[in-house]
């Protein structure tokens, strides 16, 4: 029992971070139709801001300040650069956002150097949780780092909040309608452009949350955005481009497969790519992708 429980927990914890990054990616693609390769860089910025702000003012301040900062940066990015590429082919979008990611990475390298910044976990989040004291089905001593459990909770809370926002609010209704047919909404007198800009900002806020809670685990260095982007992009593709439930499902599959193949080093290095190949061969639009989209 302990074995499977621990492996599932580790799988969940690996999924949690991919899920957060993939969620922002797929949200932006689903609404704006933009493949945002700079999303990893937004995660990296989130982690750097989190280190900087939490070391100066404490982690509590960082939890509020970092998402606000990233929201503003997201809006500036969308208005200043991305919106000019809405009508352009995906390859152009990928090239420009990839370039932007490199620029942001190099800027951070110039300011902070190429080595990782130490990101101390706040006191309330450090230490271990003795799981066997709470879960009677576990035998003996089973401990898990508290911070990683917090990451899982934060990640799933973010997913639930985002779904609630899109499913149960007027804003969500308009955005979903815009995803179906933005032109029709514009004819009806709805300012869908402004809503989409806000969606880009929300995507950036999710990257900020990932940076805040994932930074201590992934380390904070200029390349971290790129490292996280590739598996997260795979999650989006496997889940189906633009599908939020698809991203959640795919990240769980990838997290679990990494956790359960840990003992087989050679397999573990390729497992996520192997799964991607198989799923895309069988179902080119991804697990929950819309028919005809990126097929």
């Amino acid at each position, binding site marked *: 029992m302990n074995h499977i429980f621990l492996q599932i927990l580790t799988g969940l914890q690996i999924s949690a971070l991919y899920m957060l990054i993939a969620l922002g990616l797929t949200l932006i693609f689903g609404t704006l139709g933009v493949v945002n390769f700079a999303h990893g860089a937004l995660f990296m910025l989130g982690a750097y801001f989190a280190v900087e702000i939490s070391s100066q003012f404490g982690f509590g301040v960082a939890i509020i300040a970092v998402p606000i900062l990233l929201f503003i940066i997201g809006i500036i990015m969308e208005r200043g650069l991305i919106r000019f590429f809405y009508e352009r082919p995906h390859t152009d979008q990928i090239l420009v956002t990839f370039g932007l990611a490199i620029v942001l990475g190099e800027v951070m390298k110039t300011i902070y150097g190429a080595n990782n910044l130490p990101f101390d976990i706040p006191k309330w989040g450090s230490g*271990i949780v003795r799981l066997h004291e709470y879960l009677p089905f576990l035998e003996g001593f089973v401990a898990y780092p508290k911070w990683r459990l917090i990451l899982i909770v934060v990640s799933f809370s973010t997913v639930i909040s985002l779904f609630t926002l899109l499913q149960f609010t007027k804003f969500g209704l308009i955005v979903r309608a815009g995803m179906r047919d933005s032109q029709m909404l514009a004819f009806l007198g709805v300012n869908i452009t402004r809503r989409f800009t806000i969606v880009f900002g929300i995507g950036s806020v999710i990257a900020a949350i990932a940076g805040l809670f994932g930074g201590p685990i992934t380390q904070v260095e200029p390349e971290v955005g790129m*490292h996280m982007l590739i598996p997260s992009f795979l999650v989006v593709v496997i889940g189906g481009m633009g599908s939020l439930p698809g991203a959640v499902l795919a990240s769980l599959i990838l997290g679990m497969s990494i956790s359960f193949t840990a*003992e087989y080093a050679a397999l573990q290095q390729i497992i996520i790519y192997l799964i991607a190949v198989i799923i895309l061969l069988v179902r080119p639009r991804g697990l929950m992708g819309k028919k005809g989209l990126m097929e």
Partner: protein
Amino acid sequence: MTKKSDVSKTVSRRSILKAGAVGAAAMSAPMFYARNAWAEKAIGNYPISGDTMMLGFNVPQTGAYADEGADELRAYKLAVKHLNNGGGMLETMTPSKLTGSGVLGKKVDFVTGDTQTNPDAARTSARRMIERDKVIMFGGGSSSSVAIAQQHLAHDLGIVFMAGLTHSNDTTGKDKRRYGFRHFFNAEMTGIALAPIIAKEYGKDRRAFHLTADYSWGHTQHDAMKRATEAQGWTTVNNIMTPLKSTDFSQYLTAILNSDADVVVLNHYGKNMVNSLSQAVEFGMRELQKNGKTMEVVVPLFSRLMAQGAGSSKIQGVLGTTNWNWSLQDAGSQAFVKSFEAEYGFPPSMAAHTCYCQTLLYANACEMAGTFYPPEVIKQLEGFEFDGMGNGKTLYRAEDHQCFKDILVVKGKSPAEKTGEFDLLELVDTTPRETVTYDHKIFGGELGSYEPS
């Protein structure tokens, strides 16, 4: 019937050929053995033009071993300062021909490079130093794959490479080269020195799970530890090769928790080790009971820098081996520590120590040879026995260019035991040089010729 004249003709031709061969051998033999007997043709960046001897220091300024690289660079700069102005181990090294006013009348200068803890980047950086900056010797580490890549390049281009921190058996084993030298100890010696101590401390009936950095060093370190601990009666349960770039080890640690192992052997170094050890503690491994015993963590290659990175609360009681520690009280170590502290305000690491020694050893070999001509300098280093540089009497073995000296087994101090910020390791045992000396033939490999290939 053969005519007499024909026979004599045949015999005489053969004798001429034989005589010629013997004569050629006779003429070449003294050339080989006698010092300075070779015609000193241009090799690599020899002869040096101008009055400056240029050295290249190629260290990891980024990547998993960046902390070690930064300290190596500090030591190199100090070595250059001492070579030009005297001080440090120049006062304690024996035998020494170093004067403290340059080398062979030339002022010592240096250029630096970033290996990025990556063999390709290291080769590019080394080539730039050799071709653009005209270095006569280059050195650096860390990471054995990086050192091995540079050593091969050194041999091809005829530039002596004095390796910095590299601990793989391959560096002076299957990948040894005539132009490469290692002062640092290696994985084999770690196994020989550490296994009896951990068997004594934790018992003979132990089950070990290894996590291993997936490249040359990790592989030989795992192999050496496996052999040495199994000889003590331990069982190796499993080994997982982890990519060098890993920062999150949670999935591997979960596999250990799920096994029946009661010892974790972390064949990791630098930030890899800091992360894997910290995370092992986060996963409760230092509090866990397995098979009726407390779970133990072993770090075969330990250093003060890594101990500092992980923090004393996590390293307390962890056993490992180290090449050198700043707390050693011999005159050489103290001279180095004092001058390093005066320069930088904190004590040097073992990475710094080996790089500093290597620079002095090369410079001394040039002085002894009376020339910068690489084959002559190499011959001076081969079989050179010295003292006064820490770890007692040390031999640069001619057959594989590996230094043999006493090996230190250390234990991480608890927060209560440490007396200062840098007082993190306690010396548990010193394994004598004779005990860790092994037959150079066991790892194979060829040094190659004195002239570059």
